[in-house]
């Protein structure tokens, strides 16, 4: 009966949403899909985070206490894969789904059915990956970078599942990226020229091109791993005329742009939030756009800085060192522009702003260690130590993830129609800020003192540092439950949010009511 009613409704007013589970299964609405992406990424964040808790618990003391080394390697591997492909990337895609149409005045994404598909294959990809942990021989244990031949000749049979799940994740990302590009190129409201687009749209536009360029490279890499392992090819096996280092070149040709895929949208978020709470226009809009494009371009010619110790000709080492150092120039421009935006503004410190400010400082610290890592002779000492672990967690956790938190707080009123609980949110912020530094800052020292990464046990000199790091880790993990509480509370009720809850916020998304109606901008707005 209800189906018939639904059908009739459907023909009568073609924008009525079906109810129940089918609403979510069959939805082509960018807001529904955006919400699903965001919830999915948060669940993955907790799953990947609980693996980090296993890692930190084992490393709390020297000696083996809780897990055996083989399982420890599975935890570091799957933690990395889940956080990169399951938490950070889908969170950004979720934000793009929700916000890009609202920001450019479009009624929906350009390819809504593909949008549904690109989300719904993700849970299957991660179900496959997680299921592989329960196979005989365990899940992938070769690090998220899956260097051959550890991932080929010497891996367990779960490798086939790993390859298949990475393929699905890649297909999902590529479809998401195509959708973003097509939407931005075709569906901007009249008057919204490229150089009037909000920076979040710009950074996602550039990110989407990076995705389309490099996800197929990843697909190639995993496929070659698959055929090397099961079908007798020798892409990465010297005995058959291949080269294990070739794997690393292919992987990092994907991997380095991937790093920027996980940070460029953050730049866009921060460039929306800092002006809003400084009540002042973004400083140097066009240089921000050019800097983003420059970073994206450079990301294709720096990959081998992940491989300085593999034995490269000195000329190649020098080229990759110089190219990598160059990246700090456009990145610096961005940081300076954010500071200049704040300068002589009229600043207030609501939670989105707090996360944005923490982002600028902590991401910059990650940038500093990145610059240090670029210097090849010193990289020989830093490489594959906890210094690197500290570096990429600063840019990914206190960088990318803090920006996602900032975005969530900034747009929650628009999504739910309620203001979130500011007191609880501030608790979340301060707990996260303190614990994230307790967690990752001492890792710099462990690495400099010589602790290699990806080891389940360590010599006694690293005991104190690891204990502090583990305590920071547990505290950071627990702090994220406050976030869950704030979001649920906000979704269920709270103070009514006006269309524009932030005094200094700008953009089309604030011209529609809160919560944003199921369908927005069916008549395109006029942008002056």
């Amino acid at each position, binding site marked *: 009966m209800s189906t018939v009613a639904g059908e009739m409704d459907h023909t009568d007013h073609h924008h009525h949403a079906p109810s129940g589970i089918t609403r979510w299964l069959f939805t082509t609405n960018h807001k529904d899909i955006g919400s699903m992406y965001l919830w999915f990424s948060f669940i993955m964040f907790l799953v990947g985070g609980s693996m980090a808790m296993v890692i930190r618990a084992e490393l709390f003391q*020297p*000696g*083996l*206490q809780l897990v055996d*080394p*083989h399982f420890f390697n599975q935890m570091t591997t799957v933690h990395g894969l889940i956080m990169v492909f399951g938490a950070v990337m889908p969170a950004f895609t979720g934000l793009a789904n929700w916000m890009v149409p609202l920001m450019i005045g479009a009624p929906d994404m350009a390819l809504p059915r593909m949008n549904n598909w690109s989300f719904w294959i993700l849970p299957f990809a991660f179900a496959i990956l997680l299921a592989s942990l329960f196979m005989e*021989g365990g899940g992938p*244990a070769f*690090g998220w970078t899956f*260097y051959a*031949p*550890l991932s080929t*000749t*010497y891996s*367990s049979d779960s490798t086939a599942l790993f390859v298949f799940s990475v393929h699905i994740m890649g297909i999902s990302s590529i479809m998401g990226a195509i959708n973003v590009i097509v939407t931005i190129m075709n569906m901007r409201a009249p008057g919204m020229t490229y150089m009037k687009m909000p920076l979040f749209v710009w950074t996602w536009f550039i990110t989407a091109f990076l995705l389309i360029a490099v996800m197929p490279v990843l697909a190639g890499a995993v496929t070659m791993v698959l055929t090397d392992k099961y079908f007798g090819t020798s892409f990465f096996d*010297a005995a058959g005329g291949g080269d*294990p*280092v070739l794997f690393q070149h292919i992987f990092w040709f994907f991997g380095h742009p991937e790093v920027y895929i996980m940070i460029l949208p953050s730049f866009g978020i921060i460039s929306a939030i800092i002006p809003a709470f400084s*009540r*002042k*226009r973004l*400083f*140097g809009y066009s240089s921000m756009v050019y800097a983003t494009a420059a970073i994206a371009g450079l990301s294709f010619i720096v990959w081998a800085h992940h491989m300085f*110790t*593999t*034995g490269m000709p*000195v000329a190649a080492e020098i080229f990759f*060192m110089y190219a990598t*150092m160059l990246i*700090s*120039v456009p990145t610096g*421009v961005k940081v300076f522009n954010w500071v*200049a935006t*704040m*300068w*002589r*503004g*009229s*600043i207030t410190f609501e939670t989105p702003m707090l996360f944005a400010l923490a982002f600028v400082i902590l991401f*910059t610290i990650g940038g500093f260690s990145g610059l*240090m890592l670029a*210097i*090849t*002779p*010193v990289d*020989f*000492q830093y490489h594959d130590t906890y210094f690197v672990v500290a570096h990429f967690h600063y840019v990914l956790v206190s960088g990318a993830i803090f920006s996602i938190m900032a975005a969530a707080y900034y747009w929650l009123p628009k999504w739910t129609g309620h203001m979130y609980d500011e007191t609880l949110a501030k608790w979340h912020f301060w707990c996260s800020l303190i614990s994230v530094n307790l967690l990752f800052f001492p890792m710099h020292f462990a690495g*400099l*003192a*010589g602790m*290699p*990464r*990806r*080891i389940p*046990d*360590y*010599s*006694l*000199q690293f005991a104190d540092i690891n204990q502090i790091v583990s305590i920071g880790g547990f505290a950071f993990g627990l702090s994220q439950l406050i976030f869950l509480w704030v979001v649920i509370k906000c979704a269920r009720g709270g103070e009514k949010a006006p269309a524009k809850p932030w005094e*200094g916020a700008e953009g089309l998304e604030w011209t529609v009511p809160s919560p944003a109606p199921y369908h927005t901008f069916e008549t395109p707005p006029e942008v002056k």
Partner: protein
Amino acid sequence: MSTKLITALTAMLPFAASAQSSLNLTQGVTEISQRVYDLHMTIFYICCVIGVIVFGAMFVSMVIHRKSKNPKPATFHENVKVEIIWTVIPFLILIGMAIPATQTLFAMEDTSEADVTVLVTGSQWKWHYKYFEHDVEYFSLLATRQDQINNRLDKGENYLLEVDRPLVIPTGKKVRFLVTSDDVIHSWWVPDFAVKKDANPGFINEAWTKVDKPGIYRGQCAELCGKDHGFMPVVVIAKEPAEYQAWISEQEAVQKQAKEEEQRLLSMSMSKDELMELGERIYLGNCAACHQPNGEGIPGVFPSLKGTNMVMNDKSGHIDIVVNGKAGTSMQAFGNQLSLRELAAVITYERNAWGNNTGDLIQAADVNQFVKE
């Protein structure tokens, strides 16, 4: 008074040195490692200065430009001149940084005119050293006891950083390392030399060092190489050239003698007790990392030896796989890692331990038939 002060200060020196080394990069014991340390500190200080300026500006702004103090925001949002300045200045700093970095890099990569050459081969999870100029080669394995790792014994001072047979090199000489691997990628790292080089299977990398100070220097494998990646340390002893010469001559003699002994042993047979006792020791040191102390392996990764067909029935297959390994798997060839006596003992042990009880006794001569020259 002043003597007391000096004594007190001298007493604190080692403490200060160790406190520093536990939080910062080592200065190491070579000219190169010192240059690397200086580069590290230079770039670190540059980052600190930039950090103070940028974060300082942010904090000033947060304090004096907050809404309560500055209710009316300014309206500027562009300034080409400023933007050019903060593009050009970082660029100049980078050039200043790149020059010394490039010079150091060239020095590090110059492996020419070495006095001593050592072939370093990684395999799961041990290092093998072979001296080019002498007839000396040996494996170097973790010496920390399993009981310490499993918290049944107190951990020693060099927990996880100790090996049974360290690499020995002369001081004051340029030592070249040729680095390669027998299975997966490893990375040979000694922080005090600022040498970290990947060991790639099928390829040979070069590195070098010239150590000024005699001493014991410890490092670890730096590239994830499977289950026991955390348990393959590197230990290098640097000796005065005369001492080194004496050591290497002695080693040459010892290894020559051992080879002759092997031949003599071929005609001798060992008792079951002898074989089982030696076999257990060899098994725990070389086999248990994968096949586990109880012989059951890890399902899906490392096969069980308990009651399996090869161990129970196929004697020649068993000897062959231990001596020559199995291509395309983690099973290494132990023919060149263990003596005939040790091989015979460990195979006997595997065929009789954990309730296998085949009653087979394997002797050195049985093993010798499978050794391929």
